[in-house]
């Protein structure tokens, strides 16, 4: 059997899938059972936790930040009512300056507070330092927010493009994965096909620096083409993705 154990060990290096777990009767061995439960617990904690926007505001200094709340009162409502997460709470729109500006960043908690805490500031700064010559508005920190809240914010601030950095739905392998949605000429009612998306930004996925590289390229292309979505294919040079789940690396 030790030969087989060795073979399973080799196979496990090929994938992050939970293969070769072994059996306890027809159940899982206790270690595998508890490993799974821990991964699920981290995912649930990421969904139900609150993003630490105080800390994020400090980390972003000296950038100006504006804090906003969506029309969602609490997390259970957020999960049931995506429509409310796309609207601002009453009175919130008055906090937004009229602009105009080239780029507005919105950091939105979405479905993972952990993703925003771990990766939002690094991704934003990695992007901004590649946007020399463009005007960047105050950074909006939005609680209980969906992607399309960026359309409302971007329209109010007369932004040419809005980039929404948002916590993605956690999986068991990564609870802190960040996504970015870029929309040219944001106005309420934009469809998903009118956005460009970068996803899987976390320690074992796309690095914040690589994401910043791609996002800055997308922003400049969006401003040049005056469009995002199906007409704009991400083709930034330089970064390459690794193989077999080994994670991306700089080529």
């Amino acid at each position, binding site marked *: 059997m030790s*030969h087989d154990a060795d073979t399973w060990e080799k196979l496990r290096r*090929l*994938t992050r899938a939970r293969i070769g*777990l072994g059996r306890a009767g027809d159940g899982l061995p206790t270690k595998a059972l508890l490993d799974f439960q821990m991964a699920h617990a981290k995912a649930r904690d990421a969904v139900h936790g609150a993003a630490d926007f105080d800390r994020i505001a400090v980390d972003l200094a000296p950038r100006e930040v504006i804090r906003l709340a969506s029309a969602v009162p609490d997390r259970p409502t957020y999960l049931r009512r995506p429509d409310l997460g796309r609207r601002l709470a009453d009175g919130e729109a008055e906090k937004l300056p009229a602009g105009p500006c080239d780029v507005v960043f919105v950091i939105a908690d979405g479905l993972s507070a952990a993703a925003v805490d771990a990766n939002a500031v690094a991704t934003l700064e990695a992007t901004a330092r590649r946007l020399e010559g463009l005007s960047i508005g105050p950074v909006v920190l939005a609680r209980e927010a969906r992607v399309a809240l960026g359309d409302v914010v971007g329209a109010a601030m007369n932004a040419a493009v809005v980039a929404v950095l948002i916590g993605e739905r956690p999986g068991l392998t990564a609870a802190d994965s960040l996504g970015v949605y870029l929309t040219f000429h944001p106005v309420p009612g934009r469809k998903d096909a009118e956005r460009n998306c970068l996803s899987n930004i976390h320690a074992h996925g796309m690095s914040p620096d690589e994401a910043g590289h791609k996002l800055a390229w997308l922003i400049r292309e969006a401003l040049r083409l005056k469009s995002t979505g199906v007409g704009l294919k991400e083709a930034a040079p330089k970064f390459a993705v690794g193989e077999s789940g080994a994670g991306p690396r700089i080529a």
Partner: protein
Amino acid sequence: MRSRRFKAIHAGETHVFTGLATLLAQASPRRSGDELAGLAADSDTRRVAARMALADLPLKCFLEDVVVPYDADEVTRLIVDTHDEAAFTPVATMTVGEFREWLLSDAADGATLAKLAPGLTPEMVAAVSKLCRNGDLVAIAAKVRVTTAFRSTIGLPGRLAARLQPNHPTDDPAAIAAATLDGLVYGMGDAVIGINPATDNVESCVSLLTMLDDIRTRFDIPTQSCVLAHVTTSIAAIEKRAPLDLVFQSIAGTEAANAGFGVTLSILKEAQDAALSLKRGTVGSNVMYFETGQGAALSADAHHGVDQQTIEARAHAVARAFSPLLVNTVVGFIGPEYLYDAKEITRAGLEDHFCGKLLGVPMGVDVCYTNHAEADQDDMDVLALTLANAGVNFLIAVPGADDIMLNYQSLSHHDVVRLRHLLGLRPAPEFEAWLARMGLLDAAGRLPALAPDPSTARRLLAIGGAA
């Protein structure tokens, strides 16, 4: 007809419901998707009153009134135009409430229900499901057998098949082979070895199909493979002479929702004909594989004011028009805005299985949830045990219950083995014989206790190129 009024009077209180779609929606067990759509009853009292009104409704009303207009929707036209009046005769004079009682009675045995299926519309089975408790849904569905075949035979009494789902976020061939091996040694894959591709294009579809077919032919496995790409990708793969067994497509219960998936009934027919022309099946010629799930129409803004469970039953009516090998609801996948928690997911899974089976569809279930739903593996244990008792055709299994590509949780290979052992259910017969030949099944028909015969495992491990 659209503004027909239905009434229930209870304890001196009168409840009025305007329109058949409203009556069905308000009679539905509570779920977040109907509330999001603004269709749900606004109180529990009104919900039960709607069921009282529905119970008194003659079944034949569903032949006189439709929930989505005939002229506006090809799914409605399919349902109306293919209805078998003669098959409907045994229940033609019943109300929905009487139909429930008859379904529970011994008079409604498997043979009777099989003959009845072409006479039932999806709205009829959705209506009666709303009057059924979970136990009723299990007991009635357990009487219905829908058997289909390609290289293995699915749906026979005393059998429980499984889809092996070796997904990988970058479609890495070695990683997919490793996960496939993990499933095969647990006896998974008799329903299908099916990959959700990370990239939906023809080249990657062809290369995955070729890889799966190599594994299947090298070990002479009596099963079928599938790459769950868009139907048009599969048609293109067939034109490139890829070794394609089954055509997959996600479908929904309205023309507009299907348009959201990029399909029409005529595209599905074209795909079925193309797959049939390959003549790859050995024991049968069911070549289609469909997935459905409550909420798909609402998410495409294409529900026509009809509740998500009724629309789901209409998706099953779409499926049955193409004689599929496999159909499964992805019940907990679509998210908490449609099914909020384990109670709603469990109920919907049992409803979908029940409705599919009554309509004559070879129904399986992806017993699953996402990490933002209020559910966990304990809840999946309960739903899987319940469905196995209801005679579900197949379940989906992924290594360790963790789909690393779609980021959700389904059942583990272990869980299907447990159900087979606990309930005396066996794999598809052709696949069972293969497992026995490979030493992956003992004389009692059980997975060997500790590990399979090392020499067999080693031969299979060669699939991954690691041994």
